[in-house]
């Protein structure tokens, strides 16, 4: 029993790491640009499929390094051509636009790579379990958790220590003042969008190694990412990280006792948070109204 619970807690942590990676990107874009990027799951799928197509040429490690960057470049272009036009307009329009984009990306990947689940090969030594007692602890899973932690650490370093990061955070608080101080807000939003999409692309490569590739691979991750943002607290990136891990573990533990509710439990958590603490666990006061 302990092993089963441990297995599910660890599983939940991995899923939670995915949620967090997705939700951090979504949250950054939402905070700075006021855009809910519905197509975030689509970008995740693009990252995964690009990695699949690149692996025969540059290997797993090469794909892991290159595919998220290519995804981010696509993201930069999409922001430049489409999303930029909608800043300052009713948020409804950016929602609808990214919604349509999500449809197009899903159908596009299905058209290019086919509807069947494709296998994504990872290096052998990563695929084997670390010990026979803890069969679920494959090297790949541990590797994923470590990589996500390193990425998130690097992200927070960028946001807190580099000029770009500090400007992104300042702009999330008060874009007008940042603009008046001479920062090019257009470029800032563009780079911020690209950074968020990079995280989605990275999540896509990692998810491909665990789940295999499907055009709908991002769909199951996007709703929990919304929940992670709300549970963690609007406007707070550490909150988003915490929210992602928390709901991942919660759904993992629920899967032990009541498997059919493992998806619903995170929405119950969201309801409780909204009831007791509407601004979220680490959310700033006054963001809600």
């Amino acid at each position, binding site marked *: 029993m302990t092993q089963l619970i441990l297995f599910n807690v660890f599983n939940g942590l991995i899923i939670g790491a995915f949620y967090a990676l997705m939700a951090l990107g979504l949250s950054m874009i939402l905070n700075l640009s006021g*855009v809910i990027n519905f197509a975030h799951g689509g970008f995740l799928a693009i990252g995964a499929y690009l990695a699949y197509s690149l692996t025969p040429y540059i290997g797993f490690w090469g794909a892991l390094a290159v595919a998220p960057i290519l995804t981010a470049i696509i993201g930069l272009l999409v922001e430049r051509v*489409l999303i930029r036009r909608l800043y300052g307009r009713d948020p409804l329009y950016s929602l*609808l636009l990214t919604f*349509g*984009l999500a449809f*197009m990306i899903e159908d596009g990947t299905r058209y290019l790579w086919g509807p069947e689940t494709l296998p994504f090969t990872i290096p052998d030594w990563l695929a084997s379990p670390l010990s026979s007692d803890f069969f679920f602890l494959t090297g790949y899973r541990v590797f994923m958790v470590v990589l996500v932690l390193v990425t998130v650490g690097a992200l927070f370093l960028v946001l807190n220590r580099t000029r770009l990061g500090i400007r992104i955070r300042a702009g999330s608080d008060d874009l007008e003042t940042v603009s008046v101080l001479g920062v090019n807000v257009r470029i800032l939003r563009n780079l911020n969008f690209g950074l968020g999409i990079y995280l989605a692309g990275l999540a896509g490569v990692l998810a491909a190694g665990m789940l295999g590739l499907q055009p709908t691979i991002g769909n199951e991750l996007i709703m929990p990412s919304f929940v992670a943002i709300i549970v963690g607290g609007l406007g707070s990136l550490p909150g988003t990280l915490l929210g992602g891990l928390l709901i991942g573990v919660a759904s993992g533990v629920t899967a032990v006792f009541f498997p*059919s509710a493992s*998806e*619903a439990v995170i929405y119950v958590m969201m309801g409780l948070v909204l009831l007791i603490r509407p601004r979220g666990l680490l959310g700033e006061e006054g963001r*809600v109204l």
Partner: protein
Amino acid sequence: MNSTLNRQIANALIWALLLTMPYWIGFVGGYTSLASRVVVLALAAMSLNFLLGFTGVLSFGHAAYFGIGAYGVGMTIKYLAPSTPLGILVGMGVAAAAAAIIGTLIVRLRSVYFAMVTIAFGQVFYFIAYRWNAVTGGDDGLSGWRTLPLDFGIGKLDIAGQPLTFYYFVLALFAVAVGIMALLLRSPFGRTLLAIRENERRARFLGIPVEQHIWMSWLISCVFVSLAGTLYALLNNFADPHDLRWDQSGDFVIMAVLGGMRSFWGPLIGAAIFVVLQDYISSQTENWMSFIGLFFVLIVLFFPRGVVGLLRRKAAS
């Protein structure tokens, strides 16, 4: 004076078109069931627009209540009692209860956050329908029931047998629902909703209990969407888990935007265009998703005011 006259002419024209639709839709390549679908989805889009266009609150999760209505009527007829009106009432009642509870949790949120939470909560009902296999039929949907004739005591009206009868049954309920919404919007309550849409802070300073009004508007909107959901299930003799999903919510929003959010009848026009286009595209190509997605993008970029917005601007210039 002139504008009220114009409005009355427009109203008369719309009702005339709706009343005669089964007789002319064949000439433009449609069929009677398609006409019913237009009216049902128009009701959903107009109900959503009560909240979206006239209260200024962005909900992206209305499919949940549409789907609750659909499952409510199906499950009532299948398990509880063989009565179509009872099924409709149960579907609307359950949806009202769900909307009332969720509404209290979300009335304090605004704009994108409101949208995000409504989408996320919508998924709960999707998972229930999807997972609770034994009762809801899971992924396959709820079948094994059918629309039953209306029993008036003195005689029965078989609404399911003839598509034409069903169309007028749908249109009658549509008229009642739309009439109630129009009356509400003309009442002081409706004017208050407009005030909140235009300037929430000012409305609050005037002493208007903004949260209560938004909650009421949300509830009204959800209940009428659930009525549309029950009619949709009765039309298909089937409830589909897809009815509850977020992409269905997106469809309702695009119908409202395409027709014109600031206009009462706009969503009806949007629904008609969307339904006919979807019917056509999905019969022509397997990649209909790309086309619908592209359609969304193009509307947002080039047509954000919708058909009615465009007509009004033309008339003004």
